[in-house]
């Protein structure tokens, strides 16, 4: 029987916040969502949440041997560059790009979240950890997106664009470290 376990919930909750590639992507995505107006914001956020669950499912059933960290950082870079460009989000093609970035981010964050399974405590660790990870991802995105929404029009959106450039730099910085890491 599955019972709530704060140990595994918290371990899952802190996972996206303690993983540099996840954190950079979450901050970037939060700012990108915050740059958009109400209806787009909610639609993209909901799609992102569904994509995270889809990522968990893919990770559970398929043993993908991708370089997840590299893909996450490349997506983070694209997301942050979108923040810097601050495109008019009303044209269809811009909406489509944002939508794809949200879905790709959610799926990759889900795929890169491998839950802890301790033999004997299997189901309990697995589900509590996943629940914690999902909550961590959702809460971080919602908080960052809501804060960014407050600054959306401030100084004609310059603050968020500057933030976007810092996120792009961080993503490039970690990507560089990843590339120079001896194999």
């Amino acid at each position, binding site marked *: 029987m599955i019972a709530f376990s704060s140990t595994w919930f918290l371990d899952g909750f*802190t996972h996206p916040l*303690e993983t540099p590639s996840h954190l950079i992507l979450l901050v970037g995505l939060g700012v990108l969502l915050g740059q958009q107006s109400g209806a787009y914001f909610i639609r993209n956020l909901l799609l992102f949440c569904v994509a995270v669950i889809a990522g968990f499912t893919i990770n559970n059933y398929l043993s993908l041997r991708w370089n997840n960290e590299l893909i996450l950082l490349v997506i983070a870079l694209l997301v942050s560059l979108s923040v810097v460009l601050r495109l008019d989000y009303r044209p269809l093609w811009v909406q489509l790009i944002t939508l794809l970035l949200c879905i790709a981010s959610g799926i990759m964050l889900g795929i890169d979240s491998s*839950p802890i399974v301790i033999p*004997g405590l299997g189901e309990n660790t697995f589900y509590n950890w996943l629940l914690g990870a999902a909550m961590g991802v959702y809460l971080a995105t919602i908080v960052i997106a809501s804060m960014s929404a407050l600054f959306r029009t401030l100084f004609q959106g310059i603050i968020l664009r500057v933030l976007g450039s810092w996120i792009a730099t961080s993503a490039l910085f970690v990507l560089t*470290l990843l590339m120079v890491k001896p194999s």
Partner: protein
Amino acid sequence: MKKIIGLLALGSLFITTLSDAHFHYKINATATLQANAKKQLTAVKLSWLHDKTVSDLMIKSGQSMDQLAKGVAGDLADLDNFTQLTFNGKRVVTGHVTQYQLVKVKDQLKFSFTLPLKSPLFIQGHTLRIAHTDPGASASIFYHHANNITLGNTFKSLCKKHVEAIQGVEVGEAPETIQISCK
């Protein structure tokens, strides 16, 4: 230039620290080779002493020792038994865990089980390697010393055992090389 190198070093330190935030635990292992009358290897009997943290979590899960033992055996089956046997570089196919039991040793839990080979194997004149890896990258299994491997009467005079720690091992990789070379 020095500042950039310093910054990169500091950054990599930060990433290493964060990567280690994932839940880890240690298992101290012993192994005994089992043979049939034809002097073929038939199974490896393993004994794993879990560290205090995980032992505590297992005990506090409220399950009886029998339930826990059954759960450990069941979960291990889904996790490739944390064990890969290779013979002359080729993977040895193993069956389901048998004769398992979980006992309390002071305040730690020891799980003992037999890992049978699908078909008996002549190891004379060749090398058998044992690697223990957790796909979830939480457990690290150590022998520490070759004395923790028992060759048994059949292989005692024929084989030499060797345990060596692997330097710079990544999370989720086997921390030691376990080699049994037979003449």
